[in-house]
């Protein structure tokens, strides 16, 4: 097993005729993901890497039975693309697009929740269940099929962590990038809840960063979990009041600091690595102890 996506996931790429959409549709297809359709208004009937393109989501879902959509549409049109996906019947939406205004996200978030549709992002790399399916933009070759769930607010930092895990022989069940925006569809707690329930997952790595209080909330939840969780928090040296690349990575006044997050995690009994490499070491230890005990 894995969470959210597996061999049966059927994906539509919204914005498939754009540069990024086309590139990643191809990469996903090469990985073995069932990319069954693309959507670009006005391009219906065309093909992109042999994937049929439709004018609209309703039509594409009806024709292919897709259950998942990944969105590569520029921010100005992204909100409408999400609404269209929401009304098409898919159960999971991955918003890769960066730069969606927060006021739009408030409404989108409320809308998708009201329809019980799971979404990931925005401004996220997507997710991968190694050996099964990739619905995202991460490079596949650093991943190894295994038992550790990875959840993270950032992209390349996660690749760094996963790369070190794989080098150490520690495989992953599913890796999810939840995105770096202030409002995201899938929180740490959401991902942890799914990992806790997933029989294949034996431990979880949570990679947080400054801004908001998602890690602090997660810490409380982890205290109730049976599976071990290790963590890394980026931004110990970040100054207050500045957005560190991600729209959500900002210390406001005294809230959202790395210190507060690390403290909350330590209080919940979670070991927090000093470096991204440290995650692999902590996991190796946990898994050995777990296997022994």
């Amino acid at each position, binding site marked *: 097993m894995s969470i959210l996506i597996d061999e049966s996931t059927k994906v539509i790429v919204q914005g498939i005729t754009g540069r990024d959409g086309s590139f990643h549709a191809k990469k996903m297809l090469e990985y073995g993901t069932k990319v069954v359709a693309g959507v670009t208004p006005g391009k219906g009937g065309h093909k992109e890497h042999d994937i049929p393109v439709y004018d609209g989501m309703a039509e594409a879902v009806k024709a292919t039975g897709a259950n998942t959509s990944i969105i590569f549409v520029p*921010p*100005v049109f992204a909100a409408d693309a999400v609404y269209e996906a929401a009304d098409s019947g898919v159960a999971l939406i991955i918003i890769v697009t960066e*730069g*969606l*205004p*927060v*006021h739009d996200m*408030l*409404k989108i*978030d*409320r809308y998708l929740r*009201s329809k019980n549709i799971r979404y990931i992002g925005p401004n996220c790399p997507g997710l991968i269940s190694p050996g099964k399916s990739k619905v995202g*933009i*991460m*490079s596949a070759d*650093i991943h190894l099929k295994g038992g550790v769930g990875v959840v*993270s*607010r*950032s*992209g*390349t*930092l*996660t*690749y*760094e962590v996963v*790369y070190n895990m794989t080098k150490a022989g520690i495989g992953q069940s599913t890796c999810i990038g939840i995105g*770096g925006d*202030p*409002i995201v569809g899938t929180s740490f707690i959401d991902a942890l809840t799914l990992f806790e329930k997933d029989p294949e997952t034996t431990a979880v790595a949570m*990679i947080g*960063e*400054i801004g*908001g*209080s*998602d890690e602090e*909330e997660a810490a409380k939840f982890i205290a109730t979990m049976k599976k071990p969780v290790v963590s*890394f928090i*980026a*931004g*110990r*040296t*970040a*100054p207050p009041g*500045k*957005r*560190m*690349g*991600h*729209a*959500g*990575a900002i210390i406001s*006044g*005294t809230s959202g600091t*790395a210190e507060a997050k690390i403290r909350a995690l330590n209080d919940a009994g979670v070991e927090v690595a*000093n*470096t*991204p*490499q440290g995650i692999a070491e902590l996991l190796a230890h946990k898994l050995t102890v777990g296997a022994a005990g």
Partner: protein
Amino acid sequence: MKLHEYQAKSIFRKYGIPVPDGEVALTAERAAEIAAGFTGKVVIKAQVHVGGRGKAGGVKLAEGKAEAEKTAAAILGMDLKGLTVEKVLVEKAIDIDKEYYISFAMDRAKHMAVFISSVMGGVDIEEVAKKSPESINKSYIDPFMDLKDFHIRPFLKQAGLEKEACADATKIIRNLYKIFLETDANLVEINPLVITKDKKVIAADAKMDIDDNAMYRQQEIYAMLKEELEKQPEHQAKQKGLSYIKMEGNIGCIVNGAGLSMATMDIIKLYGGEPANFLDIGGSSNPEKVKYAMQLLMSDKNVKVALFNIFGGITRCDDVARGLISAISELKVPFPIVVRLTGTNSVEAKEILKGSELIFEETMIGAAKKAVGLVAR
């Protein structure tokens, strides 16, 4: 992006929220002229993005043209918590009877906008939250509902406003919400909202913070900010697709990805160094971006060594390498460069860089240690 008080007040005026009469001045002479237009006292307020301007000496009363000029001259050029005052707002002073706090903000955890009010206005709201939490009222606004009277009523009741002031305050709160929505604000704040001795309700201060992501549809506001923004290296970098924040250290960082950039800074610190900056060159790096990133580091006189940390994925290491080669051949880089390249096409990248004076490291930790060591020498 934060607006200055005078900019926020110009928007308030447009939306029918009463603010004191006043104008912005860049010189003491102009401040004096503005003051001369008012009878009675004026307030001269430094226009800088720091909290607690009053306590720091950035807000002063003055009477008459001469005193206004003297006061403005003292404030202009002042250093307020590291920022130099370049503009002052000169306003007719108002007779304050009561002060309140109102704002609309984003609640990240609840995924909702929130109307925050307090009957203790004119002081730092975070302080009030600590000392008198009972004076603060929060009404969460469901995005599917919009602002309703029942969100506002608890404040009006707690404030004990008289009938007419109630109606005026309600109008101000509704208009403030309209501004919040229509300008894509993360925060609109009036602190204090003043009831004057002649029973008028006035926004004595104004704070606005606009969502960077919404700038494409907030052209009027962007036009207001443009001049000031264009002076900032952070903004110039952003225009080129890079995320840059200057710090006080001497190890310049060039990294792909925001999280990895922060982690790189953290590791430098962990091994005893000080990062000179946050710099995320983004996902699809072209050689021009790499060159520009190097120029940014060179423009910072503190930088003693550069640390490249690239995790190739979508970003191809060979692209970065080509950028790097072109940068070092065209620019005279005055400091050593430590390079760590991993992932997609890293072998090709190393081939490209072979023979250059770059210092290679295999891991983040190795690269950070090396950079710290180079500075320490």
